[in-house]
């Protein structure tokens, strides 16, 4: 069970490899443990964007926080360029932090309101890279230019900016020391759609220019479909399905991915009216008291007896990636085909 799940052969140059990551929270020692992340594995290539999707409580932000060392991992590894971020300490950790940066949903709460932009972006340059004085100012100006702001914004405070501009500042700050990986945790979720698209286009430009990798966490599937070459679908701390975004969005192999996609409202009234939808009943189970077997079993339209007792092992899918579902191996035995291969819908 603790065997790291087989991940898709990415074929590229792996930057980050998350292996059998477990994060467990306990409010008190006597409380039942909440297994927020329960054996998650995936890899991210250099210069690539991977999308992590799932509903609240699926563990997507916790994975990010564990990689950033903001919460302790119970076990597992997060190997960035050969170094396991989860075991580093002291100077090694400080050095590694330069390589991994994070952008949060609400930039206002991650910025010191009494610092001007020049210092907000300049501080990591000084602290992490020892760049000061004129060199610092030059780099700050360059970063502002990269994110579509200008040097006339240097002496302004966070409150003087719109939400979209603030997110640009947060991105400039994250990129200050040329990190290898930027984790974007719902970074565009609070923005209006037109601003959101500006930021997504900016992220894509920056990735082309610098080769940075993005771990893009979002609940908006359309946005993930656009920005991420590969996608990980999480449910209750486990990977349900993972693989090329195109494959997952066109022909999902896991009933949860299918239901999630089917729940997304489509901005087209005629399509919306004709659409066959899987409306899931119920809600995700309590993470401190998860059911035995597959965590999705209680809401799954295809549920079989085995699903309620045994957690399925990850198996490869045609078209790339892995899926953890008994439909693949027992029952109708899809053997790597997508759900559309099912002629009869059990359950």
């Amino acid at each position, binding site marked *: 069970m603790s065997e790291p799940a087989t991940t898709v052969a990415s074929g590229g140059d792996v930057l980050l490899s998350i292996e059998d990551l477990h994060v467990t929270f306990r409010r008190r020692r006597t409380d039942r443990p909440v297994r927020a992340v329960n054996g998650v594995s995936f890899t991210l290539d250099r210069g690539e964007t991977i999308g992590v999707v799932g*509903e*609240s409580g699926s563990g997507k932000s916790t994975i990010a926080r564990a990689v950033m060392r903001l919460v302790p991992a119970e076990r597992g590894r997060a190997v960035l360029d050969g170094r396991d971020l989860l075991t580093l300490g002291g100077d090694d950790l400080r050095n590694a932090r330069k390589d991994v940066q994070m952008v949060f949903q609400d930039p206002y709460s991650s910025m010191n309101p009494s610092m001007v932009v020049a210092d907000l972006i300049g501080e990591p340059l000084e602290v992490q890279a020892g760049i000061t004085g004129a060199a610092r100012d030059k780099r700050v100006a360059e970063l502002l230019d990269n994110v579509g702001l200008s040097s006339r914004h240097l002496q302004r405070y966070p409150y003087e900016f*719109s*939400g*979209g*501009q603030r997110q640009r500042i947060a991105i400039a700050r994250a990129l200050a020391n040329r990190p290898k990986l930027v984790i974007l945790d719902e970074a565009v979720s609070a923005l*209006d*759609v*037109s*601003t*959101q*698209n*500006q930021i*997504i*286009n900016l992220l*894509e430009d920056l990735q082309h220019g610098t080769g940075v990798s993005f771990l893009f966490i979002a*609940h*908006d*599937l*359309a*946005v993930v*479909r*656009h920005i991420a070459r590969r996608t990980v679908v999480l449910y209750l701390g486990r990977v349900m399905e993972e693989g090329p*975004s*195109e494959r997952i*969005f066109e022909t999902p192999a896991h009933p949860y991915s299918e*239901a*999630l*996609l089917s*729940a*997304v*409202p*489509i*901005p*087209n*009234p*005629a*399509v*919306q009216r004709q659409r066959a*939808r899987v*409306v*899931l*009943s119920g*809600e995700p189970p309590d993470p401190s008291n998860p059911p035995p077997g597959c965590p999705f079993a209680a809401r799954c339209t295809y549920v079989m007896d085995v699903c309620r007792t045994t957690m399925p092992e990850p198996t490869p899918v045609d078209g790339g990636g892995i899926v953890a579902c008994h439909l693949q191996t027992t029952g109708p035995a899809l053997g790597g085909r997508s759900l559309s291969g099912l002629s009869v819908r059990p359950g």
Partner: protein
Amino acid sequence: MTDPLLVVDGLTVEFYSGTGWEKVVDSVSFTVGRGETLGLVGESGSGKSVTCMALTALIPMPPGRISAGSVRLDGRELVGLSPKELESVRGAQVANIFQEPMTSLNPAFTVGEQIAEMVRRHQKIDRKAAWARAVEMLDRVGIPNPARRAKEYPHQFSGGMRQRVMIAMAVSCEPKLLIADEPTTALDVTIQAQVLELLKDMQTEFGMSVVFITHDLGVVAQVCDRVVVLYGGRVMEQSGIDDLYYRPVHPYTEGLLTAMPQIGPRSGRLASIPGSTPVPSSLPAGCAFSPRCPYVLDECRSGPVPLTELGGGRASRCVRVHDLTLVGTK
């Protein structure tokens, strides 16, 4: 449409900013038919929430004020009613649900007590009957074990269940109009789908009209019959649902539609509207959208642009409404 339930005419809401009165909602007019769902769509700062709060005078006054306009519900004027009169309208005839139910529910009372209080406030029934009604309503909105759950506090419910409680409370007095302000924005998509379905069921069951406020054009396509598009506190376009998506008549609507990311195959760069939404203090002299509009002419900037009625209940606030062919959803 004969005899609409709600007629909003020239509604203007201002807020005092310290230096003067700023128009946040500027001469907004629309109607809502019986049993109809009207969508109010716009980005942040468009005035969609303030418009709806103003319908039942829920805006803080001061610093706000309704400086002009009229709101008629079933023929009765709501602007200028006394606080006491408004209390008999709110909840009984017009109910609100909001994005974050936790801010509308009292954490110190059980949900059953809160629904029962609401019922007792508007109907002459005793405590026991009100409690029974609360349990019945919880059952109708799909809360399992309603008799037991009625005795629980809001924090014991999940986000989706809390929104169900809000809906139960909102429809418990069978209002004529339900105002839903981004009711599913904070919910996960699978829960959103459940709540939208529930709202539709409740609407059919009670024959309510709904004003649905959202920024999500996907949700609009699913729930609305007609749509009013707001920008900078003004109505930009008003159209039936299919017209809005397939034959938009305002450049801002076109911009919003093209900016919606699609689930389908990846297609190059995402479209976006340049610039950002205006704040009331810096609205341009002419059309509010003119600084960001790809079709802008000099006359758009020179003075106020009137709303042009196009027949069939459609309207557009664009000087080029007759010479532009805009692109909608394909």
